[in-house]
């Protein structure tokens, strides 16, 4: 177990380093002159070559690739994300401000997603093939097919424009978070419902269950001790992927609802060629991914040590 954990950690570090290097290289080699883009973002005017060259030196764009990479990576290891090449301010305060809008939203979406899908899947599988089961599959399929931006606009139209119950744009009050959280959460719920449903059905078809029943084990105990753990294995797998969809959806949903979160932060940074900002978001996202997947991998091994393990 300890060896397996060390292996997982090593893999996580390699993935993080690879992501950092790849992002840096991609941005470094992106077409166009970043110095010019930064200067435009800063001064918003017609520029002379002198000004652009000065920006190039200030932003450190005149260094060679490896020097620049190491100059960035060194402080990063001490959690220093550097300074914005547009505003010159440290990256971290702006980044953490953006995260303050995004993380609660992501968490709320996840809670809504799990809170809707778990009971729905459970109820649906009580009578497989029954009307509730078929309805849940239909709704879930529809839900997966509907893009977040369409659902978001629809919700704005209904709840903000027609009914005027909830605010549509901005992020001033917690009420501003309801529509974006529901938009994202329903998408998560749709795909999770399908996975949990099929997980439960598969778990219920396990060959040892009839023998347990014949042994006199009650159905509540069978559900709790045998069906649930077996159903959890595929759900865990998908939860990691679900996070990817969630982050993807966040960028769109933040744009639709005009929230100043990580998504807007990233889009603005890309437009302005603010490399330190872009790199910070990518590294942060990679860190979240790697951490979540690490936790899932460990949970897997606790649940079923046959996965990737050597001994019982």
């Amino acid at each position, binding site marked *: 177990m300890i060896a397996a954990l060390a292996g997982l950690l090593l893999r996580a570090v390699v993935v993080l380093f690879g992501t950092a290097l790849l992002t840096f290289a991609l941005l470094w080699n992106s077409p166009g002159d970043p110095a010019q883009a930064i200067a435009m973002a800063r001064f918003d005017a017609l520029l002379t070559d002198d000004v652009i060259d000065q920006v190039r030196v200030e932003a450190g764009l005149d260094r060679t690739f490896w020097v620049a990479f190491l100059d960035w990576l060194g402080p990063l290891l001490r959690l220093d994300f550097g300074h914005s090449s547009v505003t010159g301010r440290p990256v971290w305060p702006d980044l953490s401000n953006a995260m303050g809008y995004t993380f609660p939203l992501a968490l709320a979406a996840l809670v809504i997603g799990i809170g809707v899908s778990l009971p729905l899947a459970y109820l649906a599988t009580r009578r497989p093939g029954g009307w509730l089961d078929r309805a849940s599959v239909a709704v879930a399929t529809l839900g997966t097919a509907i893009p977040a931006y369409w659902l978001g606009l629809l919700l704005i139209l209904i709840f903000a424009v027609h009914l005027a119950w909830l605010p549509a744009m901005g992020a001033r009050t917690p009420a501003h978070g309801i529509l974006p959280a529901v938009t994202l959460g329903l998408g998560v719920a749709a795909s999770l419902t399908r996975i949990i449903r099929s997980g439960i059905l598969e778990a219920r078809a396990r060959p*040892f269950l009839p023998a347990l029943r014949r*042994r006199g084990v009650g159905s509540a105990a069978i559900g709790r*001790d045998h069906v649930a753990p077996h159903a959890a294995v595929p759900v865990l797998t998908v939860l990691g992927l679900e996070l990817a969809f969630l982050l993807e959806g966040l960028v769109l949903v933040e744009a639709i609802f005009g929230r100043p979160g990580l998504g807007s932060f990233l889009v603005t940074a890309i437009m302005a060629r603010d490399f330190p900002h872009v790199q910070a978001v990518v590294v942060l996202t990679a860190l979240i991914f790697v951490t979540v997947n690490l936790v899932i991998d460990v949970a897997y091994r606790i649940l079923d*040590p*046959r996965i990737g393990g050597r001994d*019982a």
Partner: protein
Amino acid sequence: MTLTVSGLRVVRAGRTILHSTSLSMSPGDRMGLVGSSGSGKSTVGHALIDDLRGQGHSVSHVPQSPDEALDPLRSMAFHWREAERALGGVDVDRAALFSALGIDGGDMGKRPWGWSRGMQQRFVIAMALIGTPDLIVLDEPTSALDPVVAAASMDLLERHLQGRDTAMMLITHDLGLAARRVSQLMVMAEGRVVERGATEDILARPQSVAARALTAHKSWAMVPC
């Protein structure tokens, strides 16, 4: 206490898969139920268990393979506790049962696949013996094991049952196994019991077509179990 069932009948989807069957067993009896695949042996086993339980007898069941009895995600200790709880906290001498079946060396903290298959099956048999049931139904208990391990398991089970009131029903298509382990035989074909009697008689002078077909292959005399 004699175990008696009469008029056992199973209809599934409008088709009779078990025609009216009656049987009675005395404590300590060893009964074999043989027949080709699909003849209705397991159906008799399940119907018998349900009927006898309904009468208030304790009956346990050992399925064909340990995969059909043990959850791969749960430890052996968990399975054992669960079986004890299901039987209502009867007094069990686990150590004695385990040493009788030769699995006292097994690590209870491991999951089923951490044990050999032979040990898993003997663990399942041990679970079936919790509380000394009136009848233990073994449904093809050795077909998932290699012959030597299977013979050893059956020897251990037989030795444990000796002097106890637990009757045994052995469901098998393996006549060699039945010949060595049971004193009475019931031969099944197409959902009916077509022949019954003492094991030697049926083996020596099979009357029904099904019994003759089963005994025609003399190779059953060669296998060790």
